[in-house]
């Protein structure tokens, strides 16, 4: 099920196991772990990337990754 996230919404990371190994590692190293609260700062049209904010830093990831991270 696809969740429609909107800008400024806060999402909690639930599970990182369904991500590709490479990308979950990368996010891990930036300090994302289950329980991390992410704020959506920007969304690009046509399911483009999203900018998320956590621990005072901003990163861009693909929409699909954000969906997987925050899916319950």
């Amino acid at each position, binding site marked *: 099920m696809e969740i429609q996230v909107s800008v400024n919404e806060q999402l909690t990371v639930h599970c990182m196991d369904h991500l*590709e190994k*490479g*990308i979950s590692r*990368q996010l891990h190293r930036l300090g994302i772990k289950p329980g991390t609260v992410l704020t959506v700062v920007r969304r*690009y049209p046509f399911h483009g*990337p999203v900018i998320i904010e956590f621990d005072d*830093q*901003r*990163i861009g990831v*693909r929409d699909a990754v954000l969906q997987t991270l925050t899916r319950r």
Partner: protein
Amino acid sequence: MTTVALLGNPNTGKSTFFNCLTNQYANVGNWAGVTIDQTLGNIPKTNINIVDLPGICSLTPITKDEAVTVDYLLDNNPTDAILNIANACQLKRNLLLSIELLELGKPLILVLNMMDELSQSNVHYDLDILSHRLGCPVRATAARQNSGVDEVRACLSNQTTITTSDPLKLDYPRVISADIRDATTQLVKKHRLSQNFARWLTIQFMSDNDAVVKYVDEHRLDTLSEGRQTYREHHYADQIFHVRLTFIEDTLAAATSFTENRPQNTVTTKIDRWVTHPILGLPIFIGIFWFMFKLSFDWIGTPMSDYLNTLLSGPLSEATNHWLTVVGALPFLRSLIVDGIIAGVGGVLTFIPQIFVLFACITVLEDSGYMSRAALVTDRLMQLIGLNGKAFIPLIIGFGCNVTGIMATRTIEQPRERLVTTLIAPFMSCSARLPIYSLFVTAFFNQHQAVIVLSLYFLGIVIALAMAKFYQLVFKLKDASNFVVTLPNYHRPRLDLVIAGAWQKGKGFVKKTGTVIFAGTVLVWLLSNIGPHGYVINIDASFSAIIGHWLQPAFAPLGITNWQTISALMTGVLAKEVISSSMIVLFHLSGQTSLVTTFSTLFTPLSAYSLLVFILIYAPCFATLGAIKTETGSVKWAIYSLISSTVLAYGLSLIIFQVGSLF
């Protein structure tokens, strides 16, 4: 001699630090992945060597440039001490790496850099608490402002700080700790590793570090290989990560205090409101590039180039000719110097202003932090061709020089994506192709110079993207979702860094004029003055003419009918700038101005454009082919690139000329 390695997360200012400490210039930029190989320097008046290494988030490498750093550490313990540069604003994730480094047991100085940015927030760190908990000296700096660097230098010169140290020991779960102890003892006993290195290696191996696993396999450290199954089954890697993160959170909680200072809307947020705008972001990106080209070709670069040209082909050429006649030099020698070297090499030298302005613009983009925003706004577009926005950065750098562009592909995670980006990078119209564009544009499209040049750059991008789509289908690339880009705070570009950066990138061009272009010009001059029967008076009997005539039937369908141009194209493989110097020599002219006049009798605007398209796409220069070979690790890809691009160039020019002739 003491060797100190600069280590830290990407984009924390390691290279800026390196430049401050050593008074040298290593390329700096405000995006992750500027440094892609190690650079060595010396602190003046000391016996301390500094090694600048690509940034890493952790010791588990994901990209090729990160592997450079990890391999460096694994390789015989080469460094005596570590200077760990951390971004003070993102201390939490920076400390993840610091812990891995502290476990290595080398003397380490932790530098909290970018304190100026931290001071704008309401966070304050107690350095003594950090130092006490981590067990290493901690210093605060703002390297861009040169503040605090002297303290670090003093700290490095202090023998005791950089010779003695104990590894950091975290409280891993009991079972893991016991396993670490056992494996370490075994490694020390059986394989004669040092205690610290063995312990560090064990922890890294348990954390599933690919580079370490490879190292263990290669060195047949069975003690560890045997345990792999158990470590994996019981998720040692996750447990270790968890302990580290908890330790960091505790440490930071103890060391952090909050000041009254209310964090305001920073400059970065204000700029990003527009620059990363979902809809306006892409037009702004295009606008920035339009501005960059206008600056290089219309507003600053071209007027300066024209001035230089007048000087070189006029007074300098005449004076030299006069002087050589007076001293009685042989006509052969006089012709070589005046018609060959001054005209040919000089013809290329006049493009220095344009190229330096372009390089300065690219440096500003790198230094300000815009590059990662460019990756972000182009990501959706790149997704269509199976790449991600990060692949756009090497392509932009390729506008300066394809070789540096190809080297910048090292920051791309997936090997397949990296290969595709390497193969399409040569279609980016590099600055070396500019001289020849300028000549033809002046001759045929005087009213619309910038538009025509821009159309070639744009065509290069379109071809690159189309070829990427083609490779995506051929290689069956999945729609990769692996795109993570960090958005650093903007920096105001520093004038001295911009100048140093432009010089660093552009000096290769100047060097080339003295070597490859010089040699190429002399070669062309010789070939056009010597024929099968020795020195020729009439150029039509020379080797150049013979080769050109022989290939003429092949080029006629493209609208290129004079042999001089064909011979000049052949020499372009040496370096693209050689094409214009060859033409000046082959047409026996004194410089650009007369070449422009000659063109109008030999080309029509259509055949001129067809030729420019051919030059844009055909065979990459030798340096680029070399880079393709190095980065792909195979000579086959270099040969493939040579052949495929020439075929593509021929096909496209053919279509343009033939279809265009119908109207």
